[in-house]
């Protein structure tokens, strides 16, 4: 059952990923010729730390996209969890990091579960639910903080130190992101729970007929996006050492952009961890390198918009060519 499915999936997806690798390579060479500082240890360190947070969030966004849904509330979840952990840290500076992390995971999972219940049990469309909770959670950040900021000197020492300190020269943020990505790879590629998601996104009624429990699967997906979103919220606030109402504003669109550039279909059923990672890498390289090559950071948004459009148009052309080729060759099932 698995091998023919894989065979069908491997062709175009891995070709697209190879193309993306080539584009990223050209990009890196071009940028480093113009600004050699791009390849310095400090710059690469910033790059993988920023990229780590984006990649782990793009990964959970991909889970939602694979089922044919979307989670627009993840950035607001990050902001709310980040703010709550920051306020707790301000009140109890000596709180152990483990408890902060557990609080972040727990609160994130609860916020995700709200989405999950509305989507899986009440059966509302994911885009409406997460649009609503996005406003709700963002407003809640203001409510819990009273509109104030939590600044660098107000955090407990452990809160800021753990995510940004290093093991083997790499920040803990990166290690955590790597662990999340590895877990995502195993989940999507090698467990029945993960394969179910592709089935649901590919053909919902067929999936139901083969006995996949749709509501449980969806519930799991949105709890997971919340869980990882909560953790990422803590990491984000610790990395930038500030929590305020607009934390990570618009980040949900970056995660969707990374997925789309990586070949994840927003219609559901299609998407690979490698593509998603490459999409995140592409986006983070472009955004981080602009100041180095003397392009005003005000161009960031326009360039990432153009990149998204370029990527989806290229994807759709490839798709159309393949469909045409299949039509010319004749459908294998058609009688000759």
């Amino acid at each position, binding site marked *: 059952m698995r091998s023919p499915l894989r065979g069908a999936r491997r062709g175009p997806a891995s070709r697209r990923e190879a193309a993306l690798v080539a584009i990223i390579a050209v990009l890196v060479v071009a940028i480093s010729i113009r600004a050699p500082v791009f390849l310095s240890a400090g710059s690469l360190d910033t790059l993988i730390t920023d990229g780590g947070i984006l990649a782990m969030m793009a990964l959970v966004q991909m889970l939602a996209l694979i089922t044919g849904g979307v989670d627009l509330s993840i950035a607001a979840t990050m902001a709310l969890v980040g703010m709550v952990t920051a306020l707790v840290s301000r009140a109890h500076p000596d709180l152990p990091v483990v408890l902060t992390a557990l609080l972040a995971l727990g609160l994130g999972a609860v916020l995700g579960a709200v989405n999950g219940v509305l989507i899986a049990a009440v059966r509302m469309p994911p*885009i409406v639910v997460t*649009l609503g909770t996005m406003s709700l959670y963002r407003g809640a950040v*203001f409510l819990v903080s009273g509109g104030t900021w939590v600044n660098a000197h107000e955090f407990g020492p452990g809160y800021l130190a753990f995510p940004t300190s290093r093991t083997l020269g790499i920040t803990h943020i990166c290690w955590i992101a790597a662990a999340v990505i590895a877990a995502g790879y195993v989940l999507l590629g090698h467990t029945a729970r993960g394969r179910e998601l592709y089935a649901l996104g590919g053909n919902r009624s067929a999936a139901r007929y083969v006995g996949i429990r749709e509501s449980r699967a969806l519930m799991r997906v949105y709890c997971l996006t919340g869980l990882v979103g909560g953790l990422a919220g803590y990491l984000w606030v610790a990395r930038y050492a500030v929590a305020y109402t607009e934390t990570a504003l618009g980040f949900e669109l970056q995660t969707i952009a990374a997925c789309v550039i990586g070949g994840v279909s*927003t219609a559901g059923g299609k998407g690979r961890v490698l593509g998603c990672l490459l999409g995140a890498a592409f986006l983070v390289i472009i955004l981080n390198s602009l100041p180095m090559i003397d392009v005003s950071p005000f*161009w960031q*948004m326009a360039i*990432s*918009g153009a990149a998204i*459009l370029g990527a989806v148009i290229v994807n759709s052309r490839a798709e159309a060519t393949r469909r045409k080729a299949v039509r010319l060759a004749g459908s294998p099932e058609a009688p000759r």
Partner: protein
Amino acid sequence: MTRLWKRWESVLVVLLVAICAVNSVASPYFLDVHNLFDSTAAFTEKAIVALSMTLVIIGRDIDLSVAAIIALCSTAIGWLATLGVGSFGLVAAGLVVGTAAGACNGAIITRFRIQALVVTIGTMSLFRGISYAVLGDTAYTSYPEGFDQLGQGALWGLVPYELLVFAILAIAFTIAVHYTVIGRRLFAYGSNPDAARYSGIAVDAHRFWFFTINGTMSGLAAVLLTSRIGATRPNIATSWELDVIAVVVLGGVSILGGSGSLPGVILAVFVLGMLTFGLGLMNVPGIMMSIVTGLLLIVAIAAPLVIRRIVPRRV
């Protein structure tokens, strides 16, 4: 189906009356004709975009780029104003740029067969990105004499021109959607695009034009907004796309396409508008509105679904 929509609109009417009643009890300033007309300025621009967004959503699409189009048009207007273009030229420029941006969305979506959600996330970054690239952290603040009348002026010093524009457009859109063949085709392909295509409806042409009209309406909103606040910064109208979509969905339009009504959307405009105005009178900070909008959106959609589950179907 029709009965259900009628019921939804009556829910909105009850909600509107209740909100107005609470407001007038809570604040002595609410039931003042001048205040009421003034308060509409805060939501008429969004309401104008909501009219055309309704068509896009009924047709199974979505347009997240409307606020970015407003920013782009407003930037174009501001730039031309510094070159000395007159008021009429500025209005025309806003409409043309908006129409072009909308057509750009429509062309990419229908030509390359890409989901509207993805394309408009891209153009949303692109259009607002252009504003940022042009303006950076500066702003346009000088406009020709009389340009401010559009957004700030009022007929007989009472009825804002903006509200008049919205009223005329609301009637036009209602007629087009509910009483013409174009509207019938929209509902047809919104509920079943394949069937509509096989029955000879040029689905993609309609979708293209509705995205284009959505751009035009965003351009018009940009003209009115720029005239009203008299300044353009690149962050103008940030996250309005969500407010617009929330109004449309609250108005009873299904996000899955194929059903909805313009009177519902128009009622929802006033429900949210009066709610915002009332909360403003009670000195509730603006960001709290996002909690209210979010809750209202979720409850409005969830309630009928939950009720249908609990109350056994009566045929």
